[in-house]
């Protein structure tokens, strides 16, 4: 200080001296951490730890209820049960574009040489093996795992996605 007033009588010893920069820096860091911490806690708070959603596994009836060669649309579960000569598969009816429910399979018509299903929202068209024939859907429809419940009914697990060659034989 060029124009100093009265000097302190005993300057603090070098060892205990904390620079202004260090003090303010520590203060600012403390302030930021104490603000950021609660902010992050608030974000984490918004992700629920417990959700009350329906089960991902459900029984879809006995194998005999599905005629050979059929593609049965199960409305409640939003999926198709395909009964081919090789066995059973569960094809998701949830469009891979934006999760609308794609329509039932209709017989080949026009440019489509195989049965196809259309999504009403943005016009995606799918084949029975899940392939995208047309439209904005970025990937084929999913297949879910099919197994047999102890009581002899078919069990579908929508949380377990399998390949299209994963066929369940009864």
């Amino acid at each position, binding site marked *: 200080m060029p124009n100093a007033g009265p000097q302190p009588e005993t300057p603090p010893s070098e060892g205990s001296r904390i620079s202004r920069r260090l003090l303010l820096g520590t203060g600012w860091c403390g302030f930021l951490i104490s603000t950021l911490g609660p902010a992050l806690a608030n974000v984490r708070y*918004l*992700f*629920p730890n417990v*959700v*009350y*959603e*329906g089960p991902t596994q459900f029984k879809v009836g006995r194998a005999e209820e599905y005629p050979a060669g059929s593609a049965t649309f199960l*409305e*409640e579960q*939003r999926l198709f049960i395909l009964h081919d000569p090789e066995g059973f598969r569960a094809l998701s009816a949830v469009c891979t*574009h*934006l*999760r*609308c*429910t794609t*329509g039932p399979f209709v017989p080949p018509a026009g440019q489509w040489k195989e049965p196809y299903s*259309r*999504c*009403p*929202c*943005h*016009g995606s068209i799918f084949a029975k093996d899940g*392939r*995208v*024939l*047309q*439209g*904005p859907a*970025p*990937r084929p429809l999913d297949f879910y795992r099919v197994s047999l419940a102890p009581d002899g009914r078919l069990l579908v697990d929508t949380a377990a996605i399998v390949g299209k060659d994963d066929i369940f034989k009864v």
Partner: protein
Amino acid sequence: MADDRGTSTLAGRIMGTRVWQSVFRHGYPETDLDRMSTMFTNFFLHLLPAKVHPNCLRLTYTWALGMVGLYLTIILFVTGFLLMFFYIPSTGWAYQSMKDLQFAVSFGLLLRNMHRWSAHGMVALVFLHMCRVFYTGSYRAPREFNWVLGVLLWGLTLFLSFTGYLLPWDQLAFWAITVGTSIASYPPWIGETIRVLMLGGHTVGQGALLRFYVLHVAVLPAVLGLLLAIHFWRIRKDGGLSRPAGAPGELAVTAGHERPFARGPLKTYALMELVGGTSPMVGAQAPEEEIPSWPHLVFPLVVLFEVVLAVVMVLGVFFNAPLEELANFTHPPNPAKAPWYFLGLQELVSYSALVGGVVVPGLLILGLMSIPYVDREAEGEGIWFTSPRGKRVALWSILATAPFTVLLILLNAYMGVRRLFTEAPQALADLLNPATLLLVGIAAFSILVGWRTGSRRLAAIALFSCFLSAYVVLMVIGTFFRGPNWDWIWPW
């Protein structure tokens, strides 16, 4: 400044009481000084300047679009508060409470209709206001940041509309949440997390309804209120509404200021000395060129509010807000169409969700915000289209973009990536579709305009006009030319 028009009348006697005078510090203002003093001391009126430039009052300059937007916001807040008394944000009760509002609550139907039509009006008005501000070059320094705030307010208006039409829990609501949150899950890395955050889980249900309800009635209105306050405050601090330089005397005459006002006993600029910082007088050629806001601004604004309220009420009486069937989680309606203002976006999403739903809207918002930082010219501010040349550029951009947009969509319908190669990878479909080609075409065109004319303002006009034209064309296509299964139909 006590009112001395006599204490013989009842009104005069009431206005003479201490209670009245403790609330209203002024009687009816008689002189210019009184008028400005009233503007200055009244909490509500002090949002407005004490004096305005006559150009701000020209209807053909502003078309009062921002003000009508504000009035619709006020109507939306009031009707929204009232609707909250009957609406229950639960998946079991939401639809029932809409039916109650329609059939069992006195004036419930009218209030819901008014809320709906005001919301639609606000979407349109905020957009038109943005067009006005753009074409008059009002985003120029020092108003750049207020333009950015305006773009944010536009986005907020759309998000408020979206969260609003989810609440009735009808078919539109359920499938809009499904589709909307699925679009939000497309950004790489963070997409799925965003979707869980929005839904409060993994499926569309109670968690999602409650979250969108809280966003609609608490979070977004609070943010809107805050941004609006800053928006208005900036208008004042940035020197009031933009105006062209020169010739204000003639404008003062056309604005109906022929009748001279009695001047008060004190100098008027004394008022301005009470406020520090940049005052509304900045840029004014001289204080004499401005006229008192009372009555020239305040009275038209009161009449305008009456007109807006009347129009909304008439719409509410004669046109009922639609309510679709109760939400059915197994089947979307066919066709499943968004409200008109999102149909352009739905058209783009029907080519690629990632590009049409995330990339293009994101670039659009960023592009709009960056306009004032790219065009830093100063000439032509406050003049519609800046110059006759600007008007020609705008017109040609609008006229040329419409067939270009239609051409791209037809090209995609007959020779799109998925048409030619059914097995083409998704990345190719994302890269080559009407949305991306439109974006590239518009960007190239406006860069060309800027390069040929050497004017960034003209490049900005080309960019904005192309975007405006494409937006409208896509909206028209989505509204009238798309039918069940999002197939092509003729509107007749």
